């Protein structure tokens, strides 16, 4: 049981680190602020444009 819990926590951590959770978090924030909501696809493309328009990888 403890092992299962540990694996679940690792999987949830990987979900956060990989960015799989980013859209859900954005939705929650956008609804709270009452701003217009992007679709998952729009958000994904927006996120990529933001990420790769500035230095995000080191030598």
């Amino acid at each position, binding site marked *: 049981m403890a092992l299962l819990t540990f694996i679940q926590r690792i999987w949830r951590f990987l979900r956060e680190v990989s960015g799989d959770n980013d*859209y859900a*978090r954005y939705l929650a924030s*956008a609804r709270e602020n009452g701003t217009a909501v992007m679709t*998952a696809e729009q958000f994904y493309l927006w*996120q990529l444009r933001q*990420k*790769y328009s500035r*230095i*995000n*990888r080191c030598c």
Partner: protein
Amino acid sequence: MRRVAAVKPLTTIVWVFVALVGAVALGMIAFVRGEPVNAVWLVAAAACCYALGYRFYSRFVALRVLELNDQRATPAERLEDGRDYVLTNKWVVFGHHFAAIAGPGPLVGPILAAQFGYLPGTLWIVAGGLLGGCVQDFVTLFCSIRRNGKSLGQMAKEEISETAGWTALLAVLFIMIILIAVIALVVVNALKSSPWGLSTISMIIPIAMLLGIYLRYFRAGRVREASVIGFLLVLGAVIGGRYVAESPTFAHYFTYGGLSLAWIIIIYGFLTSVLPVWLLLAPRDYLATFIKLGTILLLAVGILLAHPQMLLPPLTRFTDGSGPIFAGKVFPFCFITIACGAISGFHSLIASGTTPKLIRKESQARMIGYGGMMMESFVGVMAMVAATVLQPGVYFAINSPAGVVGATAEKAAATISGWGFPVTAQSMSDLASRVGEITLFNRTGGAPSLAVGMAHIFSGTLGMGRLEAIWYHFAIMFEALFILTVLDAGTRVGRFMLQELLGHFWKPLGRTRWYPGVLITSAIIVAAWGYFLIQGVVDPLGGINSLWPLFGISNQLLATIALCVATTILIKMGKKRYAWVTLAPLAWLVAVTMTASCQKIWHPDPRIGFLAQASGLSAQLAAGTIPVAKVAETQHLIFNLRLDAAVTTIFASLVLVILAESGRNWWLHAFGRKTPVLREAPMVLSRLTA
């Protein structure tokens, strides 16, 4: 001031024990002669130093120097919008930050610096990291958090002067060009005459495009599953590469010399920077990050399980400056060859990028900024171990350019054996066969020798000797993959920066969605780094000898800029008594980089000084001793050497400008001649618990 809790006796005993173990381990690696030392001592020495550095020094910086304040809301809390400013768990931020800063630098630099023996490089990685790099990353991150995530350039402009800001921007653009050229050279040297390696990397392009389409049209944002699918496909490509290499029909299509491969990478770099980012760059980045982090973890476990002997001595004869891989003595060249594992200016750009906008509490900056760089430093230590497990003769045979040791296997083996590092052409041929390569001679740049070292460690663990070739090509794939990602991402960012600059002169060029502008500026950036790449490939002394020091100098000059900004902010905060925390590494870096710059420009030894080498070749041309067929090539080489000298001069000059501007500010603020104006975001009380 925060009250420090009373220290428990048990805690004291534990830390004294850690210090003792560290001291013994350092003594073992520094003083034992005549017999190989086990790598576990090196790892133990580094681990103890890191533990002590994090526990005591970073805590001192956090509590006394920066006075991190968890009562103060971070920009992620104040400006939370779910897009740019996002409250994020500290371990997730750590993961993101580490993935961003962990590049090829800490893997390549230590391998090259191992020509001096393992000791100078290791001591620099640990001491330079703890006292320099970790401090730079930590303080820059803190400064950016207090300024709503402003970039280094913006902070330089606001806290020092407008001139400093523009100078920093120009410096970053120049540094980017050299960085991309030198890492492209590392990839060229890793993949030349290697049908297995090149076929694997070639396969990753359609794999990444497949993932890109999957993520864009079918499962938007599902990075985990795409990464797992991609990883399995990449493994297939690594294993399948053997069949390509052994096929008389297909091997031919994947076997290229250095110059042809350089052109392939230039064309590839241009295409990936103008294609939509979702199609190739992003999915390849996810794959590369996934594989990179897994491989680093595997290497750490492998070293602990295999506990190999370090066959390279602590100091070699090449501390005298006559090294084959790059010329120059330990001071200053060991300290600029290893940049990213000890102190890297580029990290300050990452630390003032996305990371400050995700942090929940100021105190977490210690773990993320200081701790993240510490991990990177540890990666450098592991790379050093991977270099030292090779027989010294093998290490030098792989990393020495043909222009120094001789163009044939027999000549090279004889030269290297003459240095006191026995190796034979036959043993190198056997090793090449075992790892599935045509030859391992003249495979400079550090990547092949790292791959051989890693294959040795992995295959020595759990009896996987039969898989040595697979491990070797897996290691080559892992390095080439994330180097190419840095190359593409860097070209794209360079294009954005150039568009921002040129947009001031002609507005259409500044529009990032205007495709002709994208094509023109991408072509300029690719042409710039492509030029230096070709120059490095055709350099008879091995491009690493000229380009890697240029990269190291420029990277650490950027670190100088970051430390100038950090020192200025500390003085303005009223912390001038603690300014030594950033001033000490700054002073060291200025001494190292300015000495290295002067030597690379003016040293009379043609293997070190660009101008001396150019003059020597000019004299040979004038005397008519250069064969007619080589005259044009020699003239080109002379021009390139003078260009390298000019580029070094420009870097050094840009940094002297910022030093002068900063020094003026420090004088004025420290002695009350100017009222310090800190441009921090207003203090708002936090409503969150940690």
